[in-house]
């Protein structure tokens, strides 16, 4: 009902609970209840992809999903990318190849790219461009972002070998 609801979600591998109104958006729960502010709010109109998180492994716009819809499901945010042995290949790629300028789109961009590499470990430039076409960057012109993804793909391959 429009009374508050309890949402239990696995966030970055940890079970988290939040009490929210049904109208609370997933991005608001992540930022304001769980205090994970790495996920940014950009356009707030389903256009820019800045708020991208992985819901059960699929990149989605967390400004256009209700928090209650994540109940019982798995959410990965940018804070969950780093592993026990440091930055993930994608994070390292963005750092090494300067895949960011102002950094605002970066968390969403990295989430989309993380999902892409899970599905397609060796994407072509075209495949990368297509995969990130829902994530807007207004600074870099995407060239270094693409280099960062290629870097991450090589790095993952090295790590697997």
């Amino acid at each position, binding site marked *: *009902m*429009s009374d508050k*609801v309890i949402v239990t979600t696995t966030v970055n591998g940890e079970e988290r609970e939040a009490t929210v*109104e*049904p*109208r*609370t*958006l997933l991005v*608001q729960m992540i930022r304001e209840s769980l205090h994970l502010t790495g996920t940014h709010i950009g356009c*707030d*109109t*389903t*256009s820019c*992809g800045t708020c*991208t998180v992985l819901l059960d492994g*699929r*990149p*989605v*716009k967390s400004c*256009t*999903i*209700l928090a*209650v*819809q994540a109940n019982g499901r798995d959410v990965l945010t940018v804070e969950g990318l780093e592993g026990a042995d440091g930055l993930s290949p994608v994070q390292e790629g963005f750092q090494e190849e300067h895949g960011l300028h102002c950094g605002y789109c970066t968390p969403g961009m990295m989430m*989309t790219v993380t999902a892409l590499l899970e599905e397609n470990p060796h994407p072509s430039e075209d495949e990368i461009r*297509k*995969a990130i*076409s*829902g*994530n807007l960057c207004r600074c870099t012109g995407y060239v270094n972002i693409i280099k960062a993804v290629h870097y991450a793909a090589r790095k993952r391959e090295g790590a697997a070998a």
Partner: protein
Amino acid sequence: MLPSTFDYVAPTSLDEAVQALAAGAGDAKIMAGGQSLLPMMKLRLASPATIIDLNGIAGLDTLEESDGMLRIGALVRHADLERSELIAERYPIIHDAAQRVADPLIRNRGTFCGSLAHGDPAGDWATVALTLGAELHAVGPNGAVVHSALDFQTSMFETQLGMDQILVEARIPVPKAGQGSAYLKIERKVGDYAAAAVGVMIVLDGATITEASIGLTNVGPLTIHAAAAAASLVGKSIDAAAAIEEAGRLAMEASQPSSDLRGAEEYKKDLVRVLTKRAVRKAGARAQGKEA
């Protein structure tokens, strides 16, 4: 931006969902992908008192062929269609459109059936459903109802679907021997609706077109069924340039675009003419196995 407050109901069966919708008495809304409904609620263009979320109902994600029909359940997402091998192999028009609807993130949530129920003449799936002659299977308090995709939209954002009905699945006849299809869309950028788009389905016997169907996206108050353009092709050769030219002209005549930020009326009309010709040729090449 926050939507207004609402009651949230998450039924686990279709029966429960139908009951909740009836109980909502016109002020309840079904949510499938939420990729049109939530943006509207955030802008307060919609403020339903109750949201009935379909996502917890098992069995609505059917995507398969059975009894001569392709079944697309209410929770089949745009991305499911984009990635499906069955679709890539047998339904090129769906495969084409699936890569052009909105953007990859929206495609992970939005549904084929939700797009039809939304009744937006800018929606790509309404044109695909119309072109392929889909049956739209719904359920309401009085049981099952079947609508036709040909006349499903009644006015902008209005459809045949009753306020108390849930669209359960779209059923599309499996392709006939000699069938080919295509969907061509011009958009300003990824994530934008079409400036104009055209869906074509044809059936060939040798080089002769024996059946044709043409739908137009975002060039009028409704998704447009360009019946005269399609009829003009029947009996003609797929290699007859004059016949294809004429179909393009008739499709253009059927369109009623208005000038806006996506382009002037004259430009959009010409897009319809050119896209129709290209889509007919592409559908023909696919029917003859000359193109994937």
